């Protein structure tokens, strides 16, 4: 900010390491697609050429927790499936984020009954909730951009 103004146009910019790290994290956030129900169809459509998540550095939407940064939970989570979700979350390396896609993953949606977990935040910490039943691919991309904005505000001393 100050240095390049004092030195003139030297062809470089200065920034905070924290901002650069956060920027880098938003540019290549590999998702783990945890498709559980109809929202998974929209998640696949988001990956497909019409919307193309690769534009956001998310080429690999695959079911591999060890290489993933972002857990995309799309669909209703039954109580039987809940330990699996927690296990996948624990297998992901830090830093990791969770996006609850759709009403069912966010809070149970229309399935207010004993078999469905009423929101995956009972199991894992959720960063962004995307409403919609199911959300359009645009809505999912909007949720991802909301997450990017959240990641950009992270500070070093909170990196655990």
């Amino acid at each position: 900010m100050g240095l390049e103004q004092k030195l003139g146009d030297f062809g470089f910019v200065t920034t905070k390491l924290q901002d650069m790290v956060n920027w880098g994290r938003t540019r290549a956030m590999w998702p783990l697609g945890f498709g559980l129900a109809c929202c998974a169809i929209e998640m696949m459509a988001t990956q497909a050429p019409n919307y193309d998540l690769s534009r956001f550095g998310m080429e690999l939407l695959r079911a591999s927790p060890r290489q993933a940064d972002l857990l995309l939970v799309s669909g209703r989570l039954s109580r039987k499936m809940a330990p699996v979700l927690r296990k996948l979350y624990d297998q992901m390396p830090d830093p990791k984020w969770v996006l609850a896609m759709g009403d069912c993953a966010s809070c149970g949606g229309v399935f207010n009954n004993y078999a469905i977990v009423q929101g995956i935040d009972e199991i894992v910490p959720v960063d962004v909730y995307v409403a919609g039943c199911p959300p359009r691919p645009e809505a999912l991309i909007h949720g991802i951009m909301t997450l990017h904005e959240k990641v950009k505000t992270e500070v070093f001393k909170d990196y655990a």
Partner: protein
Amino acid sequence: MANFERFNPIPILKGLYTTFHSTFFEPVVTVQYPEEKRPVSKRFRGRHHLRRYDNGLEKCIGCALCAAACPADAIFVEASENNDDVRFSPGERYASTYEINMMRCIFCGYCEDACPTQAIELGDQYELSFTERVQAIYTRDMLLDTVDELEKATPRKVEPGAFDRSIPMMENPD
């Protein structure tokens, strides 16, 4: 390369031609979403909004039929009495609290069908993402349509006896 004599390049070239053709000669289908938005269909059901009459009074009379029709229990309505000094709607009552939990809502449109005054309508906004659960609860002020002129705002003072019906008789503006 024991199989070199049987190597046939034609199928590989055919496959490469497909890639080449689709890369350079087929139109790009990708929608550049944040900059360019695909228009929604006419029957699309997105975020709700509460409508007003032409004179600015609210259409919602707080009957809570939408809340009764909601399969996900996403709507909470609390009604209060109108009077001529503080008037929100032409009916006897108005919705003093109107909350929709967008995370519960499945955008089925049953509230639209149930509404006797066509007050609630599902719009075309679909960008609903939240970082906290509490942000998903849309209150009355967020759902109500905005007014252009100041004298059309609610609540307002009207002359006594102008609105004497419990269910308004006002025709719809459209």
